[in-house]
């Protein structure tokens, strides 16, 4: 479990797997108070469950715990969406806590949307569209939510990515790899020449290999392939992309590479391997 605030780590294990109740209560209280004081946030029940031997019995644990004099400040609150949270009454009033559950709800909605977009639609969730999820949204509040999400270990699969137009997107790494999300974000910039150039530079740097033009037919790039001739022409003329070179294989297939990483001889040899050699040596 990740370190967070002043959380001190797992309680002692005594007698096999059974945890000493006192130790558990203390750990829970420490976490809740740290979140309330340090982060000014509620603590989700989901984050408490790992501390308890039998998470199914968490409610009764808490019931016992809160009957204890030393933990009277630890309170439970249930949000409208059913999520349960804890807070310290020393920091928050009930009113405060209710307000905070609304925030939790908002973040929960965002997370669900992002995970659904990533898994079912294999697409990014634009930050600019998050307003629709948040009634009466204010842009600076969204950034606040995003900041709090990034520190929450429940949401550690959620990442934010910014493309060259400055547009921000969220995705879940459970369903989309970072590299793939990067490609999606580039496509969102709606600048085919830039997408081509960035991808070619990546391929030349990482693998390294020149990029077959046909690769840009892949749906992730969202490129109108009929216009490819125009894009490559722009590309090779542009000073910003002067490292991008075009090369034709003996089969007529066209490739691009970045001469920052590839010299022409190696590019040619690699392209010939891809087009001819690979099939002569199956």
């Amino acid at each position, binding site marked *: 479990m990740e370190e967070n605030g002043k959380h001190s780590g797992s309680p002692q294990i005594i007698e096999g797997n059974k945890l000493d109740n006192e130790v558990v209560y203390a750990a829970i209280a420490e976490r809740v108070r740290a979140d309330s004081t340090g982060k000014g946030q509620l603590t989700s029940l989901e984050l408490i469950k790992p501390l308890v031997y039998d998470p199914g019995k968490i409610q009764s644990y808490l019931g016992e715990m809160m009957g204890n004099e030393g933990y009277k400040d630890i309170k439970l609150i249930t949000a409208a969406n059913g999520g349960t949270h804890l807070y310290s009454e020393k920091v928050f009033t009930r009113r405060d806590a209710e307000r905070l559950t609304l925030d939790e709800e908002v973040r929960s909605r965002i997370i669900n949307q992002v995970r659904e977009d990533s898994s079912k639609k294999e697409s990014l969730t634009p930050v600019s569209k998050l307003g629709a999820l948040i009634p009466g949204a204010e842009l600076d509040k969204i950034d606040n939510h995003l900041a709090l999400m990034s520190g929450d270990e429940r949401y550690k699969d959620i990442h934010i990515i910014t493309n060259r137009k400055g547009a921000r997107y969220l995705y879940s790494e459970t*369903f989309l*790899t*970072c*590299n793939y999300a990067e490609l999606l974000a580039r496509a969102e910039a709606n600048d085919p020449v830039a997408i081509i150039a960035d991808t070619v530079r990546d391929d030349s740097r990482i693998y390294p290999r020149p990029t077959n033009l046909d*690769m840009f037919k892949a749906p992730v790039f969202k490129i109108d392939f009929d216009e490819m001739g125009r894009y490559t022409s722009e590309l090779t003329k542009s000073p910003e992309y002067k490292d991008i070179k075009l090369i034709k294989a003996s089969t007529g297939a066209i490739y691009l590479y970045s001469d920052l990483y590839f010299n022409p001889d190696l590019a040619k*040899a*690699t392209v010939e*391997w891809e087009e001819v050699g690979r099939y002569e*040596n*199956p």
Partner: protein
Amino acid sequence: MAGGYTGKTLRVDLTTGKITAEDTLAKYKDYIGGAGLGYKVLWDEVPAGTKAWDPVNRLIFGVGPLSGTGAPCGGRVSTISLSPPSQFELPAVGHMGGHWGPELKFAGWDSIIIQGKANAPCWISIQDDKVEIRDAKKLWGQGIFQATAAICADIGNDCHVAAIGQAGENLVRLSNVMNDRSHSAGLHGSVMGSKNLKAIGVKGTGALKISMDKNAWRDLVNAYLPLMGCNNQGVVPSTPQSWAEFYGSTRWTAQKGAFWGRATPAFDVGICPADDLNKMGLRTHKGIQDHGFELGVKYTTRIGGCFGCPIRCHTAMDNPNLEQYGVSRFQTNTCNGISHGPGWYDPAPTGEKQMLLKQIGSALADDYGWWSDYGQSGRDFVYMKKKGLFEKYLPAKEYAAIPWKLWEAQSPDFSKWVYKTITYKEGEFGQAFADGPEWMETRYPEMKEAHLKEYELQSWKFGMAKHHSTEASGQVGALINLMRNAHAQNHTHSNFQGSGLPLALKKEIGAELFGTPDAVDNNNDVKPMNAGKARFAVLSMIYQDLHDSLTLCNWTQPIWASPVKERKYRGDPEAEAKFFSAVTGINKTRGDLELDGLRILTLFRALTMRFMNEADMRNKHDLIPEWAFTYPKDKEPFTSGHAKMDRADMEKAKDMFYEQLGYDVKTGAPTRAMLEKLNMKSVADELESTKLLTV
């Protein structure tokens, strides 16, 4: 009793008709099985001076303790004998997949040793422990398909048949043994032919014991499967896909729109992520690799392959256009088994015509039992045509009678003519091509020179094809060709190179396996030789022989890289040891098995020395063709953009290679010291007594 093994090896003497059983482990334990067992038989029983078609030559069909079990991929069988295509008829191994090898195990046999010569065409029927030599009068002269059907009609549709076609019967040197429609063991078809042996039909109802507890075994198998990639061990998809960090240049061609277009109904394999084990057999749409995207998608019915392999690689297609040429519209094979067809033509055919010629080629070759020697024949043909060598060497009448117009039209009718002429050894042409590229060097001196000098002929030494060499991993690719007596057919090095991972990752993994990241170069950007590369080459050799003995498929293992990001794309180099120990109950570590592999490889080396009667392997056998040092003409070694080797560097490479094997650096031959360490003292003694052992 060890698991995996059946305990009995079958011996059939076709001269006397005697059929006996031997204790596998008592005789062959040190050599595991498969190719190792075969080498041991040759070593013990076939004297120097024997020729491939002499009755005393043995033909071994070798399977190993893992063959037929659920250890992926245990479907292959090694065929071991003296090799007719070899100029010196040196010992060599063929291999075929399919289901015949496992069936032999289920019948209760660890391997078959065939010796002698029957006095009339025969076939061997094996139904569990009932083994009979049967009259093959009705089968002889038939193609492999009909012979197979006839045998199945006899002993059952659930039997598996290894058979030769007319090519093997006619002692065409370039002929094979095939089973299950498209699985070919090259080299030894005519050895069977010379023994009057048409086929071996096997039906097995028995069981193979797995020593490990069944639940633990299941867990072992299921832990291993996610580490496998696609065909030829690509570990990333060929297009950007949401589940993958990397992509490109692999045979993981599954994607939306990758249809098996002629399946009924047509079926889109779609995205096949690494963690979906119920789609791993769909990752490689081999039709796309073998025929290009459009044609592959249009004509493929399914992708097939061998027993027990979850990765499929035989492209099965339906092309109604074929029926007019008198062959079935349904064709199947893989890689060069498909692509030799268009290889006869120049310029190279393209598009649908190319596909048609591919299918015709495999339809004919797989029935005639003709072996393409990795396309060498086609390349030789085109070269000879270009250089006017047919006019020079063929009798005028014969030359005029060749249907050159059909050749120019790139007509399938020319293909039919060519395969038939070779299978029946008609004329000088038929005889020359039946004997194959190596013997052609003795016939036509220009070809000897061309094989050595012309890059386009892609021949390595003595006329044998390269498969694979310097184009994959520079010096490593060169080294893995040296010791072999037929095309190297090593994919260990080329698969690792072609995994699709970024170079940085390959270097990292390479460092762990071979001692230094410098063991791995970028393709076509070869750097000077180092010890890591030698280790890479040595391991590639050892694992090839080990896999051919266990048997496991050398196209899907060793698992040095995997598609699993959480493992940082590492595979499991311990896998062979885990499976061997689990199945047999004989506990071996990776190091143990590598030693076994070295022993097997070394016995093969000793065999080569015996049959070549040569002590100086380094200079007389382990040759490197001229073109490796001269092509491309205008480039210098160690510059970017090619795989041209440097002579001094390759000498250094040989030094390091032999050193790491424990061989004598001067001769490339095993030393007494290392032979004795490997428990091969008798081998050392014999080599010494025949003046072949120098150290």
